[in-house]
């Protein structure tokens, strides 16, 4: 073994010497033989030498076999193939550029999307044993969580909840509303991420009247506390209280689905809420005990649900807690869109590969003569295949090399577009596994799609091919038919993509046409949260609200009003509704409706139309009769065929005797949750008449004189004159909110559109390639046709007809594919059926137009064929 390596090494080191030696060794052989022949046969020296040479045979071939026997060849051949391949590629820059671009366009976007998929769907969540973490649909109150913790010990090792709230942080230049997680200690134990500094909340901290302590998130610690390494033990001001920092979480720590700045104990910061079973506002996360299956946990939870529903029918009747893996729950919303996009890029990649194969195929056919001659001169078949494969692999690697920067560009665009669903992933970056993915895809493409043409080359029959005329060297009808088949498949695939895109575009257009129920022009929403320390009592809240609206309405050409939660901002309050004069409903079975408090002329400001009755006036205040305005959805659902005006309703879950509210008006429906969802029944009541002290937050809506936002500093100033400690960093225009609600669909649509566009371009290139190749092969035939009297239009028909035949077969297959596949994207559609005939016809027409366009250039060339030249060409 060692001897061989040394020998191989020696051969390489003294390469030229070795070659010289080999040459002279064989030369000396021939000379010696010639000497013998001359001596024994009495031949003249020159004749003897000639015979010796013939006897010896092809020295080149022998030398080649010598090199092979020494193992030199493999590397040597590779280097030679690469050099030769590079030379051939340089010699036909058009082909090379087309092939590399085709691959890069296929692989680049694919890699970018794969990066996102990897980050969102594949990468495990940043917790220890993330597969043990589960959650369920529906929120819990702190008392529920306590009960579940106590009753689930056989299957959950830990569990806890979190409710995102806004707290005022006054340690900076201006008061800041920061995102606080109101949590319990169980949450940290369930997520099981060790803190970076200090410690987490312990059960000892998490009790009523416990110490005011806070755990910081890494971003908050870095940005607002300058990453102070000695922060543990210091205090920070939150909502007029000082909280002692007990720990800082590492950068990798996130609470699923939320982006939070600090964590405080619910029982400490908001004890009122923690004492009510009905305050279902905590999202809970649980850790399965080792060895416990999801099914076992589900069975356990069903038992607990049943027990709680029996014990607390008023609050817990509708429980249905089905544990799902956290990963699934976190990615559930984005999954369909991402998978759709991934399918789309895979289609683009397939089309790119088919194009690449087609290009190689055409090239191998046009190089068949060269290959045949090389085979005739003693080039081994394996060697020729290898040469062809080396070339295609070289192309694939170059394609991959162009694709990677393209991928990182696509990725940057993707992240810049920042769809809401990806917002919590602040750092998606290309990691090595993704780069490897891209390279493997490109290499596989090169090898697999290089193989067919290479096989074609190796089958070349030396004598047959050389005997044939160059004109008939078309690689046979088989090769051309294969390319045509590839193009037909490409057309079909592109059509599926186009159909999907068309459906998304139509959905989006439909959605844009949806009336949100209000006029967002020049309206901004300022989210204000009143700190509990200074605004615990309702009179103080009302006083602040009135003063605020007075001040804002006194600004020039500015109208202001307020509502609990402005439409589309993602939060809402729901209440159980009871009706006067109707048979009582079992506790827990009352209908749930949206409940909004308003102050000021909210409906007129938002241009929400009044259907009947009246809206609130300043007279609908505390101590006056309780009134309510309902929306049309509520009237339709609960007062069908009746006049609701004058009817009385109350909140079914309130304690004490019913506080009856009289319905005074009906307003138009507003899209509260999203444009795609129908409006839910809603009840509006005056802020001044609520007895719910916890409604300390509000959206102040202001219709401004212009949309420049120049009024905003003045508005902030007015509010801060009233209370300088109110954070006002959450201001959004209603148009922005409306845009955000469309953003994700727009993002999906834009991306799918981009991929469909790519696919169409690739298909056009593919068709162009096939048709122009066939025109160039048929120049002779076309020349004859023209010579015997065919008109230009006949030639045009001939060429276009060829393209159209492919297009018809391809689109037919594509429609079948689309009918089968667009069903899968029903979730992403709005207002169109997955098989919308109008969309399908439009994309078919588009596809046919593209095919015609792609045929036009070669067709023009065919029409210009001069029969004299074409025939002389022979």
């Amino acid at each position: 073994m060692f001897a061989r390596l040394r020998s191989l090494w020696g051969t390489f080191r003294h390469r030229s010497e070795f070659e010289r030696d080999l040459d002279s060794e064989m030369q000396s052989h021939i000379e010696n033989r010639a000497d013998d022949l001359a001596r024994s046969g009495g031949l003249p020296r020159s004749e003897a030498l000639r015979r010796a040479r013939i006897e010896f045979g092809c020295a080149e071939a022998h030398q080649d076999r010598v090199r092979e026997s020494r193992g030199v060849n493999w590397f040597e051949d590779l280097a030679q193939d690469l050099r030769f391949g590079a030379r051939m590629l340089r010699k036909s820059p058009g082909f090379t550029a087309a092939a590399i671009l085709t691959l890069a366009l296929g692989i680049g976007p694919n890699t970018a999307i794969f990066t996102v998929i990897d980050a969102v769907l594949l990468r495990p969540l940043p917790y220890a044993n993330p597969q043990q973490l589960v959650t369920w649909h529906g929120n819990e109150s702190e008392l529920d969580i306590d009960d579940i913790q106590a009753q689930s010990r056989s299957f959950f090792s830990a569990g806890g909840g979190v409710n995102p709230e806004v707290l005022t942080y006054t340690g900076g230049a201006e008061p800041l509303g920061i995102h606080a997680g109101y949590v319990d200690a169980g949450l940290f134990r369930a997520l099981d991420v060790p803190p970076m500094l200090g410690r987490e909340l312990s059960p000892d901290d998490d009790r009523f009247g416990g110490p005011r302590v806070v755990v910081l998130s890494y971003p908050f610690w870095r940005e607002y506390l300058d990453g102070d390494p000695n922060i543990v033990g210091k205090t920070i001001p939150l909502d007029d209280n000082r909280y002692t920092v007990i720990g800082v979480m590492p950068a990798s720590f996130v609470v699923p689905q939320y982006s939070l700045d600090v964590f405080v104990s619910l029982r400490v910061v908001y004890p009122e809420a923690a004492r009510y079973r009905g305050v279902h506002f905590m999202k809970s996360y649980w850790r399965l005990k080792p060895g416990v299956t999801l099914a076992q946990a589900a069975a356990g939870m069903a038992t607990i649900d049943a027990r709680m529903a029996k014990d607390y029918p008023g609050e817990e009747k509708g429980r249905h807690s089905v544990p799902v893996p956290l990963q699934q729950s976190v990615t559930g919303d984005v999954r369909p869109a991402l998978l759709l996009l991934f399918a789309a890029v895979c289609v683009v990649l397939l089309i790119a590969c088919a194009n690449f194969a087609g290009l190689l195929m055409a090239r191998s056919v046009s190089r068949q003569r060269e290959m045949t001659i090389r085979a005739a001169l003693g080039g081994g078949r394996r060697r020729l295949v290898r040469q062809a494969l080396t070339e295609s692999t070289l192309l694939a690697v170059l394609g991959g090399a162009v694709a990677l920067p393209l991928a990182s560009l696509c990725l940057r665009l993707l992240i810049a577009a920042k769809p809401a669903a990806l917002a919590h992933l602040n750092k998606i970056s290309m990691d090595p596994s993704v780069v490897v993915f891209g390279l493997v895809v490109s290499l596989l493409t090169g090898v697999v799609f290089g193989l067919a043409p290479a096989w074609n080359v190796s089958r070349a029959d030396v004598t047959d091919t050389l005997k044939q005329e160059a004109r008939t060297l078309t690689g046979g009808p088989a090769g051309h038919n294969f390319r045509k088949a590839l193009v037909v498949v490409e057309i079909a695939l592109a059509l599926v993509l186009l159909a999907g895109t068309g459906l998304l575009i139509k959905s989006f257009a439909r959605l844009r046409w949806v009336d949100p129920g209000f006029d967002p022009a020049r309206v901004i929403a300022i989210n204000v949260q009143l700190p509990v320390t200074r605004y615990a009592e309702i009179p103080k809240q009302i006083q602040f609200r009135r003063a605020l609206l007075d001040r804002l309405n006194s600004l020039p050409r500015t109208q202001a009003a307020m509502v609990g939660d402005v439409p589309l901002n993602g939060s809402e309050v729901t209440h159980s509704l009871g009706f006067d004069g109707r048979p009582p409903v079992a506790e827990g079975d009352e209908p749930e409706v949206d409940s909004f408090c308003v102050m000021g002329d909210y409906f007129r400001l938002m241009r929400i139309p009044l259907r009947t009755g009246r809206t609130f006036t300043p007279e609908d205040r505390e101590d006056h009769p309780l009134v309510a305005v309902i929306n049309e959805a509520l009237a339709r659902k609960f007062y069908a065929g009746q006049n609701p005006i004058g009817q009385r309703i109350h909140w079914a879950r309130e304690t004490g005797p019913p506080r009856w509210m009289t319905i005074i008006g009906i307003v138009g429906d507003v899209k509260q949750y999203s444009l795609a969802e129908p409006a839910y029944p809603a009840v509006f009541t005056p802020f001044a008449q609520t007895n719910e002290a916890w409604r300390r937050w509000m959206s102040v809506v202001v219709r401004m004189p212009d949309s420049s936002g120049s009024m905003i500093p003045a508005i902030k100033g007015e509010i801060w004159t009233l209370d300088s400690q109110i954070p006002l960093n959450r201001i959004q225009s209603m148009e922005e909110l409306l845009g955000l609600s469309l953003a994700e669909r727009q993002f999906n649509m834009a991306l799918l559109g981009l991929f469909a566009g790519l696919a169409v371009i690739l298909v056009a290139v593919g068709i162009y390639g096939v048709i122009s190749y066939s025109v160039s092969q048929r120049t002779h035939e076309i020349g004859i046709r023209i010579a015997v009297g065919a008109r230009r239009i006949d030639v045009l028909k001939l060429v276009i007809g060829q393209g159209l035949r492919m297009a018809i077969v391809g689109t037919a297959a594509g429609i079948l594919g689309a009918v089968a596949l667009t069903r899968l994207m029903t979730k992403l559609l709005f207002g169109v059926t997955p098989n919308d005939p109008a969309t399908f016809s439009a994309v078919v027409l588009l596809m046919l137009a593209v095919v015609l366009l792609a045929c036009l250039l070669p067709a023009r060339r065919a029409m210009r064929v001069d029969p004299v030249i074409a025939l002389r060409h022979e």
Partner: protein
Amino acid sequence: MNEQAQLLPGTLDLLILKAVSLGPLHGYGVLLRIEQITRGALLAEQGALYPALHRLEHQGLLDTEWGTSDNNRRAKFYRLTAAGRRRLRDETESWNRLSTAIRSALSAKPQEG
């Protein structure tokens, strides 16, 4: 030509080792020596000779040096190494066993079976 038997696969290496074991030889000399020691019954194909020589050298069974041929020409001479000698002995033994076995098999008479 017809009286010359084709070389069995794998036997060329053995013949080369044998030829070289009788004294250092250049490539052409190996060819002549094989012709001589097989009394012209076996003829090695010239094209196969050099790959075989280089293979054996590569395996460390042969050593080479440049010298002068009988015809006063510069030539590359092959010599058996210690490893080559061992290999020749082993191969000869196994060849003998094989040929004895084949011969006895072929001379078996049907009745005795």
